[in-house]
């Protein structure tokens, strides 16, 4: 419900919001998240607390807006951002630099831990190298993969100074996003509507598989993989369309779902409850795609509100629910779609979901936290 959303105007346009991952045995809902800004003269990485748990009301609703714990200046627009572990965040910059920031929780400060200057760059025809925007980053501690406008793929290790592997000119168009498919394989999407699988064990500098949108090659902006069923992949395009792919078969998406009226900037399966999917867009909307509606029994934790919420494993996931994403016409019978932000006008650039909590950030310089997503 919208009443559970707390908002804060932060005087900077937000390009990324990320929950800090929870420790393995955590029983509390997430509280700490990071944001990155873009298009400011002075861009920042900021760490926030979503709100004091002590302020929880009788019904478990939360009051109070997010408050800033610490922040640090960042050179260039924050293009993407990912927590490496509880303390470290990897940030992709429009300058082509990739930085690991460390959040010191004892004294609430941020510092730059390691920096790969111009990990992405153009080889200018006449002059020296110019940085190229690093558009996407994904981590699987200690491995970090980055992609950029230069069509390059870099594989770093958090503990190594130089790149472990670089694929120059991996893509002739702009790579917009990257995610891990398996530990040794990654997925990339590009500006000519292609989804590619790269096997990092292979020495050849070519994708092991190319998938492509039919018809107009609408650029793809974001990609996420189903957390349990690794062959199910969701991508979002420039036309706001959500595509679901089954990478075991065919070279085209299994379903195309009309969604937003402009660029879809991010798509995320709920990490522990993947019959829920979230997308946000330049058109200022944020959609909740729910394929669980027909299932009589929801995973138990969804019914518990407030502080007693525990995050059970995803053992309750029903096989038939998962396949809902792959049914030929998912909209018709099984999917419930809700726009979580009516009347918003400026772009929602980023969202992140963890447990019952959603955080998102906009070009209207506000961050929003919804702590009772399934209430």
């Amino acid at each position: 419900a919208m009443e559970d959303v707390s908002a804060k105007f932060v005087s900077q346009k937000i390009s990324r919001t990320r929950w800090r991952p929870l420790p393995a045995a955590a029983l509390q809902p997430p509280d700490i998240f990071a944001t990155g800004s873009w298009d400011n003269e002075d861009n920042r990485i900021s760490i926030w607390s979503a709100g004091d748990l002590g302020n929880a009301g009788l019904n478990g609703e939360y009051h109070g807006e997010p408050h800033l714990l610490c922040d640090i200046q960042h050179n260039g627009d924050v293009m993407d951002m990912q927590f490496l572990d509880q303390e470290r965040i990897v940030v992709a910059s429009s300058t082509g630099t990739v930085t690991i920031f460390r959040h010191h929780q004892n004294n609430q400060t941020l510092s730059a831990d390691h920096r790969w200057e111009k990990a992405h760059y153009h080889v200018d025809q006449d002059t020296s190298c110019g940085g190229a925007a690093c558009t996407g980053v994904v981590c699987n501690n200690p491995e970090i993969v980055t992609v950029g406008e230069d069509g390059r793929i870099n594989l770093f290790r958090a503990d190594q100074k130089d790149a472990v592997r670089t694929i120059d000119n991996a893509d002739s168009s702009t790579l917009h996003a990257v995610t891990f498919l398996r530990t040794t394989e990654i997925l990339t999407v590009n500006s000519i509507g292609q989804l590619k699988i790269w096997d990092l064990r292979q020495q050849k500098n070519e994708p092991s598989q190319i998938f492509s949108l039919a018809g107009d090659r609408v650029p793809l902006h974001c990609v996420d993989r189903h957390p349990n069923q690794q062959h199910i992949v969701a991508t979002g395009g420039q036309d706001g369309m959500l595509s679901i792919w089954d990478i075991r078969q065919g070279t085209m998406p299994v379903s195309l779902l009309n969604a937003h009226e402009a660029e879809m900037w991010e798509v995320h399966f709920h990490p522990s409850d993947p019959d829920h999917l979230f997308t946000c867009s330049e058109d200022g909307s944020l959609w909740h795609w729910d394929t669980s509606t027909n299932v009589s029994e929801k995973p138990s934790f969804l019914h518990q509100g407030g502080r007693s919420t525990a995050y059970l494993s995803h053992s309750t996931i029903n096989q038939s629910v998962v396949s809902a994403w792959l049914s030929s016409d998912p909209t018709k019978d099984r999917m419930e779609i809700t726009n979580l932000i009516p009347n918003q006008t400026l772009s929602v650039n980023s969202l992140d979901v963890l447990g019952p909590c959603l955080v998102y950030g906009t070009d209207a310089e506000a961050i929003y936290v919804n702590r009772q997503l399934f209430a």
Partner: protein
Amino acid sequence: DTVPPQVVPGADPSARQLCFAWGPAEVLVCETLFGRAGGFRSRCLFRSPCPSRFWGEGTVGAAARALTGSVTGTGDGASGSSRVFVVRRDQDIYIQTLRKLFNESHGIFMGLQRSEEELAGKSRKAQLVQVSKNYRSVIRACMEDMHQAAVSTRDPALQGQYSTQVSILSAMELIWNLCEILFVEAATAGPLLLRLLDWVRLHVCDVDSMVREVLSSESPSKHKLFWNVVDVFVLQGRMDEARHLLSKEASANPASMNMYKILDDLMKKMPVPSLGNTQTLTELELKWQHWHEECQRYLQDGTFASNPHMESICKILLGDEDAILEKKELMTTWYHFLVTRLLYSHPTVKPMELRFYAQSSMDLFLGGESSPEPLDMILMAAFEFEMHQVIKECSIVLSNWWFVAHLTDLLDHCKLLQSHNLYFGSNMREFLLLEYASGLFSHHSLWQLGVDYFDHCPEYGRVYLELHIERIPLSTEQKALKVLRICEQRQMHEQVRSICKIMAMKALRNNRLGSALSWSIRAKDAAFATLISDRFLKDYCERGCFSDLDLIDNLGPSMLLSDRLTFLGKYREFHRLYGEKRFPEAARLLLTLMTAHIAPCSFWMTLLTDALPLLEQKEVIFSAEQTYELMRCLEDLTAGNPDKQKFQDDDVETTKVEMLRLALARNLARVIVKEGTMEGS
């Protein structure tokens, strides 16, 4: 001409002549190499051409003041060289905390534009009042943030800046609130007074600390400021609170119990206007008259003579101007005096009578000791229902366009600004919105907000947007996509083309042919797609292999954008077929590329050369008919080429032609034999 000249800090017109150029958001001022001798003497450097068109006298100051002090960059060269100053129009745009105001009010503004008049009468008015309240609560929130910032900073300069902003925001809210009562809600006689009382209570907070101090003391009635606080409550019409305090004093003085009781009774019985329609104004006036006479009686028979405090309160209840004016310090402002005066002498004041009481209250309160300040003039104009005067004065005094733009828009939605068309074509609402949005566009980050404001300026919004959007630096593809989306949604084809072209050129310069192509596909820019295709083909001719196969192999329908792109795609297809040893299909495609004139003539020689290995295959691939066509292509090329000379000079080319002719002849011989044999068998 009474406005002092305004000069950009750092630029000295007495030493050098300055020249300047107006941009949509900034003024460039530069020092020329001319000395002063012989130059014209210009003292007032900056007169905004826009406001003076409309405001006339007095506004020049506003425009110039908004400009000065916001020099954002100076290029300083050697001592002899000139400097360029970039002067921005709306300096408040750069205050970090105010960004909250701009962003949050943008949402309210958009809601108001969407809410068009589907509701009628009362509910529409309620809706507009709610919008007005929303704007005010944003101002208040921003004020609190600014106050926090002022308290928490240690830098005295910054603290001063924040404090100034707090007082500006507080003045804005005061003015807005009054406009809300008088114009948006248009409160009528009766409720009008109640609203004005609320307004005074909300904004006169100088006495709040005193009230708190007395109320929290151990025994308030013993406090030396006790009677002051009682007076404050009476002056603000807070009768219940005043009576509560008095009852404490009464219980401490059993001797004068009767006197307290009488005063308490008078205060309790005071008739007040009601918000509902439960009583008519005439009823109220009758009751009022009766009560007034009762107060008068008690005063005259000396009931309160033994206690000067209570006597003075009774005089206040009677609306005695001198008695009220004695409490000047407790009211702090003339408009508090006005409202108190109205409460106790004219509770059923009509909106149109306000101007007389306002003027005389100000005169009485200031008593010729001090002259009215700009804020006083604005409030006075509001009491006089001179809406245009309010907006004009605010434009002069306030350092940003936010306030006047949003207030004017709201008043316009209340249908209060009758088509006050200005002679340059747009109305006042639009003029102010254009100014405000232009300011937003001059800001590094806030430009996105400006777009929606331009959208709601029917006359010039589009033109302004077109001018401004082209100046947004396209630092990343992501940003370019956002700007592009804005243009596409508004069918700004010219700008769409230009953005895509800029991005395609950038990509081309960085050797990113794939990206370049996708940008020209987005703009459906056939000419540029052709240019890029030529680059691909040139690369191929030089290197003998294709780059960016992932792109060329997946052109899809976008291949049809330009003939050259079609050729590139088809030519690559030929190579694929050849690589897959599907020779007959490859041969057919190759021939079609020439006979259907898909291939540019300049590329025919390459294509014919590509045919060579097919002609040399063990198996016969080209049919007789196809071979004839190939020969015709070759002859067309050599004969029809105006640069025939070139072929003869170029040994390599000549050899190539000879080799081709030979291969074609041999193929023809083989195919005749083969086809003959097949026919025979």
